[in-house]
């Protein structure tokens, strides 16, 4: 499941629920251009609150300033990109994409990007892992717990709490994709960030099996929100962008930062994109401190640009976003994107064999 299937399906579900809203927003995205310049660009992301934030913070102002007419589409779909590239008819110009697939398909499904045309100086160097992608925002998964259910108990403080059903009883939810599950489990086994990779799937599944009767699965981000809003689970591993939405609506959950996996996405240009020059202009704009700061105000994913400002921790978004300072304060695991790129199929085959069995 290259990247974010689950997120993508969440998007699909969300589209179903808010089809009209989505169309309106896509229309807004395409109607932003007011400048005198020319050119066109088709922009694609995973939809949902993240794409809304991108539209407000990056797409609309870019269209306004550059005069490029931007059309938005969603969600990022790698099978669709593959079909477009094979048919020699690519219509997408810039996509929000997962790092492992972009690494894996660099030069085949994605264009190598001329980095000399993009100012990436404010992006940490260790995040620049592929010639085909420019880091665009910080995402990842975090363990959340129900503060009402565990009131009076010591707050869960590590991945171990996820498996401690004696102290913290009740259902726990995981995403239906190894990318959202296995790193945390592995860390609860090895207790050392440096030993998490390579993931030992046999050990991971054996550990998960110890709490199997308490495990439930979410397939879509919308489901994850629903599980939290209706307090169906006492613990859940999900994305901060979704968790913050549930909490904003009154769901009693708090993040466990010591049980988190920090990662990031990239902007990528599908092979044969008709407006690659505009795509590069857009990327250059969207990773700037201004748009990145605005993005971080809209959704609980953090800026990739170290000069961008982040919302105060007193706000829900500020409390939930995966800012650089949180990775300094807590025992945060950084995703090894290269490992995922190299082991994608193996990881997904093993995970589906375990989960459907």
């Amino acid at each position, binding site marked *: *499941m*290259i*990247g974010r*299937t689950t997120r*993508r*399906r969440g998007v699909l*579900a969300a589209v*179903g*629920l808010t*089809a009209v809203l989505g169309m309106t927003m896509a229309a807004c995205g395409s109607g932003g251009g007011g400048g005198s310049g020319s050119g066109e660009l088709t922009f694609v992301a995973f939809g949902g609150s993240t794409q809304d934030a991108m539209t407000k913070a990056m797409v609309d102002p870019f269209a306004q300033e550059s005069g490029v007419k931007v059309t938005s589409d969603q969600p990022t*779909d*790698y*099978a669709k990109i*593959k079909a477009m590239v094979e048919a020699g008819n690519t219509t997408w110009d810039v996509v929000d994409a997962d790092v492992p*697939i972009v690494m894996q*398909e660099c030069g085949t499904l994605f264009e190598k990007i001329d980095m000399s045309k993009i100012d990436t100086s404010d992006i940490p160097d260790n995040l620049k892992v592929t010639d085909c992608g420019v880091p665009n925002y910080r995402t990842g998964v975090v363990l959340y717990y129900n503060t009402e259910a565990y009131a009076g108990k010591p707050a869960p403080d590590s991945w171990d709490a996820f498996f401690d059903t004696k102290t913290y009883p009740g259902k726990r939810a995981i995403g*239906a*994709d190894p990318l959202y599950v296995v790193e945390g489990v592995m860390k609860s086994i090895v207790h050392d960030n440096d030993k998490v990779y390579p993931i030992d799937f046999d050990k991971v599944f054996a550990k998960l099996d110890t709490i199997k009767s308490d495990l*439930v*699965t979410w*397939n*879509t981000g*919308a*489901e994850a929100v*629903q*599980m939290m809003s*209706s*307090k*169906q689970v006492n613990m859940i591993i999900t994305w901060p962008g979704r968790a913050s939405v549930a909490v904003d609506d009154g769901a009693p959950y708090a993040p466990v930062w010591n049980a988190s996996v920090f990662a990031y996405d990239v902007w990528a240009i599908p092979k044969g994109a008709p407006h690659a020059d505009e795509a590069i202009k857009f990327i250059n704009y969207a990773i700037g401190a201004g748009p990145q700061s605005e993005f971080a105000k809209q959704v609980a994913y953090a800026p990739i640009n170290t000069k961008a400002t982040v919302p105060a921790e007193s706000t829900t978004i500020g409390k939930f976003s995966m800012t650089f300072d949180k990775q300094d304060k807590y025992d945060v695991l950084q995703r090894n994107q290269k490992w995922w790129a190299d082991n*994608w*199929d193996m990881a*997904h*085959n093993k995970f*589906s*064999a375990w*989960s*459907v*069995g």
Partner: protein
Amino acid sequence: MTRVTETAGGIARREKFRGAGAIPGVVVLMAVFVAPLLFMLWRSFSEPTLGLQHYAAVFTDRTSLVIILRTLEVSVIVAVVTVLLAYPYAYLMTIATPSWRTVLTLIVLIPFWTSLMARTFAWYVLFQSNGPLDHLFESLHLGGLNILGSAVAVTIGMAQVIMPFAVFPLYSTMQGIDRTLLQAAQGLGARRHVAFARIYLPLSRPGIISSWFLVFVLSLGFYVTPQILGSSHNALLSQYIAIKIGDQLDFGFGSALAVVLVIVTGVILGALGGAAKVGSGATIERV
């Protein structure tokens, strides 16, 4: 072409003309259905290299086999449940007054016209723990009801979506049944339920068979309902194909899975269809 007589020529021309009317439909089907199907078949043999490796993988991969069998099992169950629910409903439609019949038809069709996504999420909310059904069961002292993520939830959700496909074939068959036969049977001393079981039920069999087949075949391809109401340990084949193609970009293996599903379905329909024909032949004789 040699004309035998004027009349035959006329008929041939008319036949030809009638055939011509089907051309747009045939062209559209060839372009949007047959061509992609053949393309998918080709990919299952050719990607990344020519050979049967994907088929070998399907039949040696425990996950694929488990999911294929589960998909068939769920589809059989959904078809049985749906037909059992639809049968009395369709029967009620045949005996209702015309205005009530309209109401009953609308009751089946309105959910059908509603967005699948909205309906599926409605079931999601109903089924979840702390949901309305859970509370109802608790207040009736029946214990909680927590079926979200289970095969039961998937079956209920699918049966509701697919209900019209069972109700209408049943209704159209039942409408054609001469109800005076029942009166005749009762007149000859048969009790009501005997008359129903011996006369009405056999006569409605073609409707039962066609609606069962229709529901069974449609169930094999469900994606949204099991995705939302089920959980990964009861995933169906379409979900597995979506993982393989959409997420792992393994078009070859995904295509092979789809081709296997088409073939297995064809074989089952062929076998059951043959059996049903023999069965209905016997019925007519008995009646």
